[in-house]
């Protein structure tokens, strides 16, 4: 099973990024092999619609779950369309969240927000 977490730095000891769409990197963690890899989020510097583009990246990496502090409506629409589950982080430690996930303790993210900003290029 593969899970994806928005992160600040390319380090498993680092912190979860508060933003999903504009996180600099994504951590992809394989729960079977315990292997972690980092991908650059090429949506981070989008003028608008970063959430949609980042969500596309999540889907293209064929992960089974996304663990994030928050997620906007448009991004959630994309991720839900691909039947990927969105879990809510418990704190900002990457390791703590992976551990909780492995113990099946993470909750589904319920409060999808309508977006914090005007759409780009206004």
């Amino acid at each position, binding site marked *: 099973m593969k899970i994806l977490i928005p992160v600040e730095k390319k380090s498993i000891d680092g912190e979860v990024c508060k933003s999903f769409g504009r996180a600099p990197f994504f951590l992809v963690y394989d729960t079977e092999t315990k292997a972690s890899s980092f991908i650059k989020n090429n949506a981070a510097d989008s003028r608008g619609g970063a959430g*949609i583009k980042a969500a596309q990246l999540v889907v293209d990496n064929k992960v089974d779950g996304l663990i994030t502090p928050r997620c906007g409506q448009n991004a959630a*629409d*994309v991720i839900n369309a*691909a039947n990927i589950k969105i879990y809510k982080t418990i704190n900002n430690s990457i390791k703590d969240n992976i551990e909780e996930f492995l113990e099946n303790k993470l909750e589904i993210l319920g409060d999808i927000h309508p977006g914090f900003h*005007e759409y*780009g*290029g206004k």
Partner: protein
Amino acid sequence: MIVAVLSGKGGTGKTLVSVNLASISEESTYIDCDVEEPNGHLFFKPKAVVSEDVLVKYPEVDNALCNGCRKCVDFCKFNAIAYIKDKLLIFKEICHSCGGCMIVCPKNALREEDRKIGEIKRGLSGQINVNIGILNPGEASGVPIINGLLKDVKNYRGNIFIDCPPGSACTVMESIKDADYCLLVAEPTLFGVHNLEMVFNLVNLFKKPHGVLINKWINDDNPVTEFCKEKGIMILEKIPFDNNLGKINSNGKIAVKEGNYYKKIFSSILEKLYEEVQDERTINP
């Protein structure tokens, strides 16, 4: 003459100024480009109103023709398209109607559809032509509505006053494009001068003749007067801080119709605008 009335923030008095200037002109047109919350009609209460829908284009996909090449997904700078489970997912509200996705699609799987984002209402208030743009809540950009309002601006009657949206974003740029003169309304506070600087930079970028109107003025010891001195900006007029004017305005009444005192203030602004625009035409015909 076409005068755009703008300010860096809401509540400085753009509508107060444009409504009263239009009312004191012999023949005039008032255009409410503050399409997210137009309120000029509350003063004018226009009659014989005619409405027209404002439509924008967006793409619809024929999934039977789409081969999943994702050229449209990669092309869209606003990320309005995603490709999930062999299907395109299109976010209409994010689309900016550029039509690029249709050009890059090798299979002609995308077609253009119209959708309504708001409307334009035109009516008469006495001799004044009143034009109001209304953007539906939740829409990304009011630019298409402002385009519709100002398409024929040069054919409008008499003095034309454009009541701009607050700030200095795309909608404001669109609103001042054809203006002969930009009237910058500012409050004499630190906050006011910060917002004035934003619109001042904008009108400079567009090389528009401009002047400042200080609203809620108390005395000349204020940051806006200082800023204007420093930058060499003309202060056309100062509208004193006045509870009664606030009351008139919040009751939806037009100040110049409520007494000679206000009539004099706005006549003086109008005279100065004529002079300024005239001078400008002599220098840059």
